[in-house]
């Protein structure tokens, strides 16, 4: 299990615990934890509704693929540490990270 922190749209932070050996994505953990993430495309890096900002802990993450960067670039608003949660695998590298929800499609 690893632990990381999620900051929602209101700025409230909560620590989450997730198994690092089940091949889950950050998007799946956010959805399972009842965060309002639409994840329209189901994890194909095609809709950008799971847009997050990695406030801390970006260094250890795998680099974004071209498909992911294409999506991020198309958003009206994006940040130097923007990522799509569906493209981030839950693993040791996420231990202690701080993730801020940025999906403007959140309802």
């Amino acid at each position, binding site marked *: 299990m690893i632990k990381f922190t999620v900051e929602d749209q209101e700025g409230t932070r909560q620590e989450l615990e997730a198994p690092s050996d089940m091949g889950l994505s950050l998007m799946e953990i956010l959805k399972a934890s009842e965060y309002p993430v*639409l994840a329209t*495309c189901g994890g194909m890096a*095609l*809709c950008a*509704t799971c847009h997050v900002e990695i406030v801390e802990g970006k260094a250890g993450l795998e680099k974004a693929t071209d498909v992911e960067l*294409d999506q991020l*670039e198309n958003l009206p608003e*994006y940040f130097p540490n923007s990522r799509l949660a569906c493209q981030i695998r839950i693993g040791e590298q996420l231990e202690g990270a701080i993730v801020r929800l940025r999906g403007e*499609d959140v309802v």
Partner: protein
Amino acid sequence: MNPSPIHTDLCIIGAGPVGLFAVFEAGLLKMRCHLIDALPQIGGQLSEIYPQKPIYDIPGYPEIKAQELVDNLLEQAKPFSPTFTLGERVDLLEKQADGSFLVTTSDGTQVHAKVIVIAGGLGCFEPRKPVLTNLEAYEGKGISYMVKNPETFRDKNVVIAGGGDSALDWTIFLSNVAKRVTLVHRNETFRGAPDSASKVADLAKEGKIDLILSANLKAVSGEDRLQQVILDDKDNKELSIEADYLIPLFGLSPKLGPIADWGLSIDKNAIEVDTKDYSTGVERIYAIGDINTYPGKLKLILCGFHEAAIMMHSAFKYVYPDQKLSFKYTTVNGVNAF
């Protein structure tokens, strides 16, 4: 004044895979369908988001590309002559005295139907809007999120914002129509099609367009209608551009939209249905596919197909109240076109 409404048995809201298969299932029971979709083409998210992606869990197809599945479903529905209203969003749903419904779209098209089938997937795809104060005030007064008729922009000063393919393509196209096109992009480079990107760079070099890179939209202003677009340039300085039109092109995202106002029971952006027949709490309105929810729901195309078949047998009583429905196999009866 609206022209006279389109009359049909079933009005299907959403022309994605489940909506298309619903036409087939309705057709087997001799019920006609009219489909409405907010997107300009049929196929829903399959055609809009991932046409070239392979799908592996359609029964009978070890692998099929999303667009191919849509094409096949349309072919399968053809014997039942479905009609379509595309590029329009359903805004109003009004119950008539006889229990039927009158549907009105964003463009004023009206459809009169005995039964409503909501197969709306994740809602309607709407343009992503930049976060700017007063943005809404200028919508329709200089700000548009899509180019419907390029002639609107003839001899006008047009600012296009965005860095994807549609921003590049429309910049190239409108450079021959508008008085002046300014393309604003937040990065130094484009990730869109290399051909289009170099064409845009050439146009900028030739002085035919203004290309402003590493800049962000900051504000919009004008009396009565849009007159200026204000940018934050690469040195964080304000830059004001004379503009008759601003076209922000930041892609599309799904929104539940007006469906939320139709008196249906909604849970987390999905419509609650009775699994007996996928009916909603409102008589004669059904919801199938990704837009519905019930205990154990799986958002799979194949589940939507199943829901369509069950739901049509329930809707039959509203279309043919005097007839008894008998279940028949296509292997016995074939497909009887109309």
